[in-house]
């Protein structure tokens, strides 16, 4: 399959970009791993559930209806259940067909837009691997997409703006939420009140809903332990002092069967890294047109920095217009998207303020006991990570990984990388994963075979040959 622009990710950034580019005459194909477009923010109940009021109180539906209707009226091709695992230069987008993921198809494109979003960061504490402890965004995703909850009594904890809709969403779905445990210090909000002022009404709305559902808001608190044998039975929460230390003697036990916990978001940069795009910190670096430093590759939304759905829409819109102009060989006129650029500037400033306000406890790493598992896949403890750093001289996450296997399992360190770096006392490093998700060996073997077969037939180089070999998708 051939297209002008391949957009990876059907969340707000990807859809806004696709619509802007398609409106300017480009053939656009959007690939997304989910069964339906929308991304995490606009995740809808599965069609089979036939939800007549899919808009739960935690999801403002206006933006989604606009995107959905615009998409339906456009010529954009949306390929759902397509798990993109690599983008080759030139460009060929390879995607596994889900959920089985045993076959791969390829889409050839003149330009690529990475709108891969982000995923949640969860820092470890004793008991965090117990069944019943789930990522806050995971609980929300299961609720939005499957209309299910993991238990009857859920504590929501960690830090970040996501915790508010998770707590109110669970409560509205009938779960008792005894507490929202937020590490952030209310004083920090005051320091950034000017940048955050625009969101005050939204914050007030959440406060009212928390009150209505009798959710106790514990600011400057943290979960120090999750209790249970084979499943969660409760958590101990404690107050933090102004330096981010747990205040001795403040621990209190809250019985619960669910803990929804999250400590912020991490940009999804695997595809960008494989393409060689330069990062800025943990995010893909882009210019004013949302171009990465690799020609032909744009990026928008949370892959370029965590900032929420409205920012993603603005960035996606600008990216789509830039692609449309650049593929025609003309330089775009930024004055035509001045409004989106203004929104982008304002919301990026807002995101920076949020980032400064919402932070995990400063000393979280010291509070993880040696016996606590840090790498959930390989079951590597904090003690083993510390030993690698202290006794074996590992000074970076990669060396820690080689010594301990932390980050070597199924998730390839996506869950534990920030924790391993923090506990080892080293800077987080780009992961440099060659593929964005696990790929069956049979799929890789077929790519090679198809490339070789085409080589033999045409006598051309393998780089040329791959497109024909894989265009139809291996059978």
């Amino acid at each position: 399959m051939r297209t002008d622009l391949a957009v990876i990710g059907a969340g707000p950034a990807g859809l806004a970009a696709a619509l802007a580019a398609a409106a300017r005459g480009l053939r656009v194909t959007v690939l997304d791993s989910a069964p339906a477009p929308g991304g995490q923010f606009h995740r809808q109940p599965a069609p089979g559930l036939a939800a007549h009021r899919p808009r739960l109180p935690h999801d403002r539906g206006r933006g989604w209806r606009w995107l959905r209707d615009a998409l339906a009226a456009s010529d954009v091709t949306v390929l759902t259940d397509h798990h993109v695992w690599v983008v080759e230069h030139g460009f060929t987008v390879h995607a596994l067909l889900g959920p089985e993921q045993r076959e791969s198809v390829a889409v050839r494109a003149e330009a690529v837009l990475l709108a891969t979003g982000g995923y949640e960061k969860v820092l470890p504490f004793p008991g965090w691997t117990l069944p019943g402890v789930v990522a806050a965004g995971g609980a929300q995703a299961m609720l939005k997409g499957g209309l299910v909850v993991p238990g009857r009594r859920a504590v929501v904890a960690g830090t970040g703006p996501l915790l508010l809709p998770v707590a109110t969403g669970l409560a509205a779905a009938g779960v008792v939420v005894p507490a929202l445990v937020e590490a952030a210090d209310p004083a920090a909000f005051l320091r950034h009140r000017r940048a955050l002022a625009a969101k005050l009404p939204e914050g007030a709305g959440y406060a009212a809903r928390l009150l209505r559902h009798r959710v106790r808001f514990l600011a400057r608190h943290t979960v120090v332990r999750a209790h249970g044998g084979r499943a969660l039975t409760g958590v101990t929460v404690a107050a933090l002092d102004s330096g981010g230390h747990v205040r001795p003697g403040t621990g209190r036990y809250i019985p619960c069967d669910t803990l929804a916990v999250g400590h912020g978001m991490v940009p999804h940069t695997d595809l960008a890294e494989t393409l060689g795009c330069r990062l800025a910190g943990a995010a893909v670096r882009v210019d004013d047109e949302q171009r990465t430093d690799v020609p032909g590759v744009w990026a928008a939304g949370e892959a370029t920095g965590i900032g929420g759905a409205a920012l993603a829409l603005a960035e996606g819109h600008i990216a789509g217009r830039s692609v449309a102009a650049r593929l025609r060989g003309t330089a775009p006129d930024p004055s035509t998207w001045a409004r989106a650029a203004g929104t982008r500037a304002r919301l990026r400033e807002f995101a920076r303020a949020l980032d400064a306000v919402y932070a995990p406890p400063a000393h979280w790493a010291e509070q993880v006991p040696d016996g606590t598992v840090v790498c959930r896949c390989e079951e590597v403890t904090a003690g083993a990570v510390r030993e690698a750093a202290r006794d074996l001289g590992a000074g970076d996450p990669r060396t820690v990984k080689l010594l301990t296997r932390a980050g070597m399992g199924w998730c390839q360190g996506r869950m534990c990388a920030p924790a391993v770096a923090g506990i080892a006392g080293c800077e987080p490093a780009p992961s440099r994963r060659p593929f964005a998700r696990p790929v069956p060996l049979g799929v890789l073997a077929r790519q090679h075979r198809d490339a070789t077969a085409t080589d033999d037939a045409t006598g051309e180089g393998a780089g040329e040959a791959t497109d024909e070999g894989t265009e139809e998708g291996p059978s």
Partner: protein
Amino acid sequence: MNPQEPARARPGPAFTLTFDGREIAAVPGQTVAAALWAAGATSWRTTRRAGRPRGVFCGIGVCFDCLVTVNGSPNQRACLVPARPGDVVRTQEGTGHED
């Protein structure tokens, strides 16, 4: 309260699948993980080393904690795989392979 109520979901007829030999009900549109949560189960895997129970963690297919054996195939992500009538879902012990 069933969270389907505030969403006014009217799914198609429920069907059954089995989880470790026990019959559980699921509705169209649910993933295996959603069906298991709705049936009150939160763990369906034991880890390879310590044999500890695990279930859904990230809920979006990234963490691989919710691996489960479906119809004899181990290592299926329960949060991604749709539940189908007659599915035989089993707790995955370790790698899920005889070894």
